[in-house]
């Protein structure tokens, strides 16, 4: 055992160089694949990259767009990280984002009162909506031991239908038509007072204020996970639920709470998109933010601070995707690249882990 302890640093040193090379190699492969795809489909790779760059990083407006796209991703990722730290795998964020947007819209549209208060309550409502949607799987798990992965996944599709239902009922969220116009499946615009103020045009950087809320949450969660008793318990629960329960952790409350919190963050992301950029509820509001936020958490290996750059990167891709139209490259390229990058990010760590495991795994045979 002591020998293992002494060997360990050496192993890390060796593998860190190897791992780095692996990362470089796998990202190279991913990008090569993407390039090949673009070229084969008859487009110019340089134009594509340029478009992506223009859309995401060139000039204040683009950077603002990137940040706006990154904010909800980060929000979802933070929630996913809390859950993962508690050892629970919530993959239903897409639905939770959507429901959050929906409840937020309901509050924003129908609640009277001063704008700032309604805005605040809209966000609270969105968070509660998301939490509620995550609460169902939480309840099913702690009451009937229903697998969280399966139930959160199934709830995504129920959420989609619920959203469609709501925007197709004039007594719910469907837009109020004026005269003989055909009503579409979306809600009215939320009042301007309930829309989140933007940082303005100075200095040509037009970002929604949400980014500060998100960063605040990220920092808070980082600190809480690392230093608080709650974080301590959460990590205990995640690493070893039995030991955690033996030491007085209420698995139901803590784990269920983490799931609710995760849903709340996702719902808040939905509320942010509603009040920050879309301004009306549509069944397509979530726009893969839930799925991609989950992937952000994964690529960041469940470290909240690491999730910030990853979310910005993903956000940049999303923002750049909007500019692709000018080059004729379908914007779906963005999802392809995103997925390839996720695989490229996952591969080296997993490979190194397998390599590392192979030795001690046989050592278990001793005795």
């Amino acid at each position, binding site marked *: 055992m002591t020998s*293992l302890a002494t060997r360990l640093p050496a192993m890390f040193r060796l593998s860190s160089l190897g791992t780095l090379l692996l990362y470089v190699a796998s990202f190279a492969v991913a990008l090569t694949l993407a390039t090949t795809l673009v070229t084969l489909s008859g487009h110019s790779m340089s134009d594509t990259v340029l478009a992506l760059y223009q859309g995401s990083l060139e000039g204040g407006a683009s950077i603002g767009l990137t940040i706006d796209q990154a904010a909800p991703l980060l929000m979802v990722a933070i929630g996913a990280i809390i859950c993962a730290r508690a050892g629970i795998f919530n993959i239903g964020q897409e639905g939770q984002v959507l429901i959050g947007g929906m409840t937020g819209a309901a509050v924003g549209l129908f609640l009277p009162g001063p704008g700032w208060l309604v805005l605040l309550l809209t966000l609270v409502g969105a968070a509660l909506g998301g939490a509620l949607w995550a609460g169902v799987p939480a309840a099913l798990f702690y009451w009937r031991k229903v697998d969280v992965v399966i139930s959160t996944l199934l709830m995504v599709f129920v959420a989609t239908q619920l959203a469609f239902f709501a925007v197709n009922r004039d007594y719910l969220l469907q837009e109020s038509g004026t005269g003989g116009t055909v009503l579409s499946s979306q809600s009215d615009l939320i009042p301007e007072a309930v829309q989140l103020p933007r940082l303005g045009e100075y200095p040509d950087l037009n970002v929604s204020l949400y980014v500060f809320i998100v960063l605040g949450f990220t920092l808070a969660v980082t600190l809480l996970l690392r230093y*608080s008793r709650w974080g301590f318990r959460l990590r205990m629960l995640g690493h*070893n639920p039995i030991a955690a*329960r033996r030491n*007085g952790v209420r698995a139901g409350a803590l784990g269920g709470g983490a799931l609710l919190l995760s849903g709340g963050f996702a719902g808040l992301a939905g509320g942010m998109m509603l009040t920050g950029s879309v301004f009306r509820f549509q069944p397509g509001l979530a726009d893969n933010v839930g799925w991609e936020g989950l992937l952000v958490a994964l690529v960041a290996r469940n470290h909240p601070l690491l999730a910030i750059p990853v979310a910005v990167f993903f956000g940049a891709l999303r923002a750049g995707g909007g500019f692709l139209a000018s080059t004729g490259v379908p914007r779906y390229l963005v999802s392809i690249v995103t997925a390839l990058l996720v695989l490229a990010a996952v591969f080296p760590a997993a490979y190194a882990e397998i390599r590392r495991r192979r*030795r001690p795994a046989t050592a278990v045979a001793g005795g």
Partner: protein
Amino acid sequence: MSMRLSTENSDTGGTATNLVAVPAVELTDIAKRFGSVVACDDVCLSVQRGEIHGLLGQNGAGKSTLMKILTGLVAPDSGRIAIDGEHVEISDPLVAAKLGISMVHQHFSLVGRMRVWENVTLGERGRVDRDGARRVVREVGDRYGLTVDPDAVVEDLTTGERQRVELVKCLRRDPDLLILDEPTSVLTLAESRELFSVLRHVTQDENKTVILISHKLDEILHATDRVTIMRSGAVVARKDTAHTDVRELAREMVGRELSKWTAATAVGTLDSLTTPTSDPTDQDLAAQDLAAQDAAAQDAAAQDLAAQDLAAQDLAAQDSAGQDSADQDLAEPDAKEPALTKTNTEEPAATEPDAEQQDAAEPDTADQNPAEPDPAEPAAEEPDTATPVTIENTTDQNPAEPEPAEPTTEEPDTEHQGTAEDSADPDPAEPEAAEPEAAEPEAAEPEAAEPEAAEPAAGEPDTATPVTAEREQPQEVRLSIKDAHATGRDGRPLLRGLSLEVRAGEILGLAGVEGNGQAALGDLLSSLIELDSGTVQVCGTTVKAGRPGAMHAAGVGVVPEDRHVSGCVLDMTVAENLVMADIGEVSRGSFVNPRRLRARAGTLIEEFDIAVPGPDTPMRLLSGGNQQKVVLARELAARPKVLVVAQPTRGLDVGAIEYMTERIYQAARSGIAILLISTELEEILTLSHRVAVIHRGAIVGEMARAEVDPERLGMMMGGQAA
């Protein structure tokens, strides 16, 4: 050691009956390294056809690795394997199967939700023949007396029945060589006997070969023809079972004289296994062509513990039959001591059955040849009249410092053991060896009793007074469980009206065959399960079962049996593991204070002598013994009223075992009520003041240590009314 090895080799050569034949299995110079860990160091093993060959060794001695090499699960670094004289390469399990090698694994080889016949045919090749498999299950069952319903679902079977399925699974392939890895750890006595008779049948009537891996001496003595003993990856001795005895085996296995506790743990359930069935046993032995005198020696060795009990009973009767206690059973060796010490000092030579036989009558002290000088030693080091409560003995705190005078210096901490045991009186001697924080004054009640108990340790034999003293002042009841009923998640009853009481300063040993509710009881006291009915009281206050942390808050500490699974969090640091139960103590508000966390961890690491580079080391990197220390340190640091220890020494090496037993004893002395849950009967018999037997989720019998009758105990454990 090496010298002895050579003598024994020649000894074996002289007496073994069938050495002329080509060995059925011959392993030559097998070496296997895992990183820097040497699992097998040029091991040679030779097994004859038609014999039951014991492979004895502590956990980690390399016996499992050796067998994995033989079954193709692990590839050796070097060495040769010959089957029936022919050199073979066993590259994977299938090759091993083709060569007729089949292994019954200790764990994990049955799929719970499949039927028996499916499990039996799993791992074979070719078409799945359901009817054929069913038929084979029945046939093999009939042939060996292993009846089991082929269509039963495995998870519905009892542990004994599962073991049968394992055997059927192996035997249906009609192997030439059958390897069994710790087969009896989960069996009742009756089931173990049944197993051994099957093995006997297989070797004698069908001329198959059996290798029996075990760390239980009784099993080896009782069931094998020859035995190979491994220690730290190397073979240290080979013997004819007929020409050896418990003590010699134990010494070889451990590499030195055993202290009483360790010896008892290692011996396993010898007396209970042999005593009740002395007749069939003798027949068996005769059948094995054992010389009569050896058999006698063996029996004598087997019964020594029983003898001890009887003596204890006598004594107890004399001084007015105490309900308690360790002091009693310990008293009797003292009486005999003077007569025996001479013999002992001569070093109980392995080759001298007569001397052995004599020793056998006196188990504990006999082992302690370095006994003589000891009494003086502690006295010199510390004022022997001092009460243990106040002693701060630094030397003992750190048992790693050897005392030069001692002859057996392999593992220094045993010397204290030896010291403690010179009077063969573990618990009174205890306080002198290593004094942990457990003895700190906050344990109020026991103090009254302690000075008296300390007396014999300090001075010498006569224990009559403390016995009466303790009897007259029954300690308060710390833990009281009344009529507890609990149901598992799958609807099966876990506890059926279990009631027990543990008093302050007392160790209640809970004996029983694994799977009879011990786990549920441990879980109950860890707040993991709820009760359907019944109550749990700690110090007279009812505690709500199943509310996380409630038991802990009420003062119940638990060292769970599967510490690495449920006792600690391997992916967190040692420091974090040490404060897990009481994060509040190192927190300010709702935040953990890293400095206080580290400081507290440092104190505990020092106090409990945990070998670790620093408090921030991941728990995963610690050895099993040190992990156990962390768990124990955490539980004791919370100053519990009641401490539950489940299988405290399972899977630990000898040094760690002694450390644990010592600590447990100290904890009891400091007034903590201790519930010791163990399947190792000897562990219970050596440590406990009282013994209770659990069977099918209820206590079926309870007796003072002095009244323990192994036969009755064994029957209770097996569920027969006694």
